[in-house]
């Protein structure tokens, strides 16, 4: 170990080591997960809807990059106290957009800051279905110019590298100014006498975005705990963590550890995600012996993994870490799915997503989140004294007849898309 600090617990597991870095939660917010695929039932939806008769989810920019940021989320009650214990089904799609900083004033030689405005482009999902189509909006929401691009390069390969003392100019801090829409960006390098004039564009920054969505109509009507007493009383709270070099608190005491590159690896002045459990499963979709069929029966892996939480009465404190993205029962039409695999071998629907089962709800109701193959258990009961989360990790959709997609057609197309086989549950402390 050249630098840093390694601390192990009595199980031999490290809580700090010299090569890994803790994330800092840079962006927190709430969003209403809206449906993709089919319509929805306003009166039965526990999430907070309003306005549009055909709402679609919007993308949110994630600070950091795909490989240095983590996404956490959970349902959060924002209003009311009544109702039984609704089970929440939430999925996510990932994609990209670009953020453009444009200078609003000429730079001053010898300084390391620039005044600029912020523009985010339309977002594009990583994966688009071929035949059924996913209706998602493309304009990012909940933009936070103060954090969305922290640490990102604005000067490499041109842009604001010109006129700078370093060709890898990146953003180290962003502040508001007295002018609306104008921000003061502190950069990693100083300006030369050439600098940048007003109106010059930095390098476009490709950002990761996430769409949170809820299942289609079938999910709502199938959940007996969705009713008017829980209607419109919940939202989804998210936290985005990424690698940074700043502590989020300034208490003046605590412990900070840096790695050999001088990067902050751990700070006790950060509130962080504390993992309570990581559950892995041997989930898979296996091709059967003939075209158009998948393997079933004993030994066939399931598609759902789940776990309960240690403190079910504090269920609202728990988050899940996003490890899988994709469609969640996008084609499972209301009442249209046959559960008779033997009589119709072409109907099987899996989805990718998460189910939140609070104390008292008893089971995850996975059949409504895209787990409709009847030869395997469609849901898991955890009992009325437990609470937990489940993850459906594979998207696979196929139907010869019966399963109706939102547009009224039938799905004759398939995907067997992987997600992670890891369900990570924890709390922020």
């Amino acid at each position, binding site marked *: 170990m050249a630098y840093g600090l390694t601390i192990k*617990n*009595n*199980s*031999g*597991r*490290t809580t*700090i*080591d010299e*090569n890994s870095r*803790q*994330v800092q939660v840079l962006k927190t917010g709430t969003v209403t997960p809206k449906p993709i695929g089919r319509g929805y039932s306003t009166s039965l939806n526990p999430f907070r809807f309003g306005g549009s008769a055909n709402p679609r989810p919007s993308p949110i920019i994630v600070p950091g990059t*795909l*490989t*240095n940021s983590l996404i956490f989320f959970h349902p959060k009650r924002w209003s009311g106290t009544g109702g039984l214990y609704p089970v929440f089904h939430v999925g996510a799609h*990932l994609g990209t957009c670009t953020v453009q900083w444009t200078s609003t004033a000429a730079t001053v030689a010898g300084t390391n800051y620039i005044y600029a405005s912020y523009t985010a482009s339309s977002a594009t*999902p*990583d*994966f688009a279905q*071929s035949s059924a189509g996913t209706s998602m909006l493309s304009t990012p929401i909940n933009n936070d110019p103060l954090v969305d691009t922290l640490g990102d390069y604005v000067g490499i390969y041109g842009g604001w590298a010109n006129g700078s003392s370093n060709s890898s100019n990146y953003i180290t801090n962003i502040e508001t100014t007295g002018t609306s829409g104008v921000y003061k960006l502190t950069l990693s390098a100083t300006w030369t006498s050439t600098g940048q004039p007003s109106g010059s564009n930095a390098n476009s920054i490709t950002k990761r975005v996430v769409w949170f969505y809820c299942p289609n109509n079938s999910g709502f009507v199938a959940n007996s705990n969705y009713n008017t007493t829980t209607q419109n009383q919940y939202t989804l709270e998210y936290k985005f963590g990424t*690698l940074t070099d700043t502590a989020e608190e300034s208490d003046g005491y605590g*412990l900070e550890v840096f790695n050999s590159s001088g990067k902050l*690896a*751990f700070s*006790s*002045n*950060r*509130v962080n*995600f504390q*993992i309570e459990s*990581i*559950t*892995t*499963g*041997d989930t*898979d*979709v*296996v*091709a059967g012996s003939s*075209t*158009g*069929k998948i393997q079933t029966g004993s030994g066939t*892996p399931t598609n759902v*993994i789940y*776990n309960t939480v*240690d403190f079910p009465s504090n269920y609202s404190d728990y988050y899940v870490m996003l*490890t899988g*993205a*994709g469609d969640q029962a996008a084609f499972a039409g209301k009442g249209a799915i046959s559960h008779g695999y033997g009589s119709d071998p072409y109907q099987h629907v899996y989805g990718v997503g998460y189910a939140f089962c609070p104390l008292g709800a008893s089971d995850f109701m996975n059949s409504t989140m895209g787990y409709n193959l009847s030869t395997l258990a469609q849901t898991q009961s955890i009992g009325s004294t437990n609470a937990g989360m489940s993850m459906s990790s594979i998207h*696979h959709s*196929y139907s010869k007849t019966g399963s109706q997609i939102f547009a009224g057609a039938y799905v004759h*197309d*398939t*995907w*067997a*898309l*992987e997600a992670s*086989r*890891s369900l*990570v549950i924890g709390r922020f*402390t």
Partner: protein
Amino acid sequence: MTTYNLSANIRSSNVSQTQNVDTADTVVVTLSTHYTPTVQTATNANVSISGSSSSTNSTVTYTITFNQTGAYTVVLYQGYYGKTYTLTGNVTGTTNYGHGLILFDANGNPRMSPLKRQPRIVGSIGGLGPGQSFTQYYTGFNSPSSAEWAAVQLQSGSNYYVEQGTTSGQFTIARADVRTSNSSYQTLSNGLETYKILILRY
């Protein structure tokens, strides 16, 4: 300091058992199984494996220890026939911090504890797969224990997923069972051949 010896046969059926323990106790579970079941869930418990097997009709031993009080759950999964062994119970006694470092904030909330694990980013890898499963080497991975490492696939729609295994310095990037044909009724198709994998330690 009691050792509870349990045994179960999950070769063809699921088994659930209950054992209440003290934090200083140890539970040794001897499973009649196939191959080596994986630890699917270990909540409030530490699980170590001995006698790993790569054949059917095997016998594998799991040693389970405890740190803090409260309910615990251990689920072991036998993939050959899709069977599970579930052990639950309550842990009583004095919290066993063992050794390590505990850090608190000004309000007494733990920011670091031997009993709390947080995800830490180690690095990432990505690329275009070769069309079949392959071994990915990554220095330090699974060392000293696979229990504190994770490799998470982040590429939406990829045909590849991670099989972590327990071998130091490597894991398997497995390719899903993909059938390619021009038939409109093909079962499994259309995934991406690219992968983006985040390496975590926790």
